[in-house]
């Protein structure tokens, strides 16, 4: 039986000032799974995420998100997607609660329990404290809260654990797994931390120089590369040469 795909790209290309940043990118993300996106700095991970969200328009090719074309049905996709792209931006003078409330109103989403969502990402007793007073980790947690609060079908998270301490990383890992396994959310996330992707993802996509080189499950990596994820990553992106 064919599994429904939450995200699919076909020969996706994006050119900036004549330079092809994304080249014939083909990826498939199954619904209800966690897809880890791996790639070196500048490989094009954020660009692919922006193309899926309609923040950028493809030069060529097609991206289908939740069964809809990323360009034609952009607003419907945005309504059903939660995202955290690069460093999250907030209304600095407002509290976390107010930021989420404004977000819900823009999303035209019923006002769910904001306090519960803040607690789910580990933001307790932030009260009326303005976001400008938040630490990097707190901002990242709030960014995740904003991505999940309107109960999306798809989460696109660009480096979601940036700035989090080990406790925070573990908590977020638990949260993402719970959202995927219990609520059936599809999660597409990128990270530089190989072990993190290995622990959380059901499937991993390796992006190098704008193209997906391979889509593979962590189990397959373990079988083929018993020495670990790092060797696998090096061999696939550098042809086996370690950057030392």
């Amino acid at each position, binding site marked *: 039986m064919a599994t429904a795909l939450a995200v699919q790209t076909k020969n996706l290309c994006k050119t900036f000032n004549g330079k092809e940043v994304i080249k014939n990118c083909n990826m498939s993300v199954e619904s209800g799974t966690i897809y880890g996106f791996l790639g070196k700095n500048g490989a094009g991970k954020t660009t692919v995420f*922006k193309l899926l*969200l*309609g*923040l*950028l*328009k493809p030069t060529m090719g097609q991206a289908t998100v939740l069964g809809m074309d990323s360009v034609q049905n952009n*607003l*419907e996709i*945005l*309504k059903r997607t939660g*995202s955290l*792209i*690069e*460093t999250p*931006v907030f*209304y600095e*003078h*407002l509290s976390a609660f*107010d930021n989420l409330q*404004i977000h819900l*109103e*823009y*999303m*035209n989403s019923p006002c769910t329990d904001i306090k519960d969502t803040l607690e789910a990402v580990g933001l307790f007793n932030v009260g009326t404290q303005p976001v400008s007073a938040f630490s990097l980790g707190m901002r990242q947690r709030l960014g995740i809260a904003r991505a999940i609060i309107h109960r999306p079908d798809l989460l696109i998270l660009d480096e979601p654990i940036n700035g989090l301490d080990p406790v925070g990383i573990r908590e977020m890992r638990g949260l993402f797994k719970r959202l995927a396994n219990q609520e059936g959310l599809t999660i597409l996330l990128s990270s530089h931390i190989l072990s993190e992707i290995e622990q959380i993802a059901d499937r991993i996509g390796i992006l190098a120089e704008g193209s997906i080189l391979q889509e593979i499950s962590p189990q397959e990596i373990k079988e083929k590369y018993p020495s670990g994820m790092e060797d696998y990553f090096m061999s696939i992106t550098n042809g086996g040469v370690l950057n030392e």
Partner: protein
Amino acid sequence: MNKLIALELKRNGLRSYNLAVIIITAVMLLLLYLLAAIPKIDPAENELAMFMSYKSLLGLTNIICMVAFMILSSAMSAKFIVEEYSGKRAALLFSYPVARWRILRAKLTMVFLYTAASMLLCGMIALGVFFSTESVFHLCADQLTIGIVCNGLLSLLLYSLAAGVWGMVALWFGFCKQSVIVTIIAAVIFSVILCQLMSAAFILNPLMSAAIVLVSGLACVIFVLSSLKRKISCMEV
């Protein structure tokens, strides 16, 4: 539309702009009294005779008031529009499932309405106080009539709309250059040019000069709106 404007107001406070409006109102009131009192202070000076008529007095203060509100409008649109569409904040705006043009239209409407309404209010307060004291104690040598009051209020309305409209034209330059400074400088340049043109024209017919400024501003705004709509729809962040 109303909901989007309400959200704009919720995330961008108007306190500093309200304070600016209060200050402009106080300055306008003082200016009205000062201009009206000048011929009494120096009766020998013949060139000050123009301040002895309500027509000149109101025309001049309305023009100055329009300049102040045009610059206020540009400062406001620089903060609410130019700043929001440049840099990372644009990605946040574009990630909402609301048509890009609808959000921008709400912002433009809010800035225009705030500029026009606050100038109208400021002018009405200043003129109201001035006319009240004039009915008791005359500073101006001219005779105060209902016609003068109505003309003053009508030209105030036209100048208020013109301030909002020309503020939007100034915004276009700032938006194209993605620069707060360019927005404000454009407003200052426009206000200087309009001031020169109007001060020459209002001697002949103050109402007509205000109407011309408004209509020419509206013609520019039609271009500005279509240009902004095009820019925003193909904007990539």
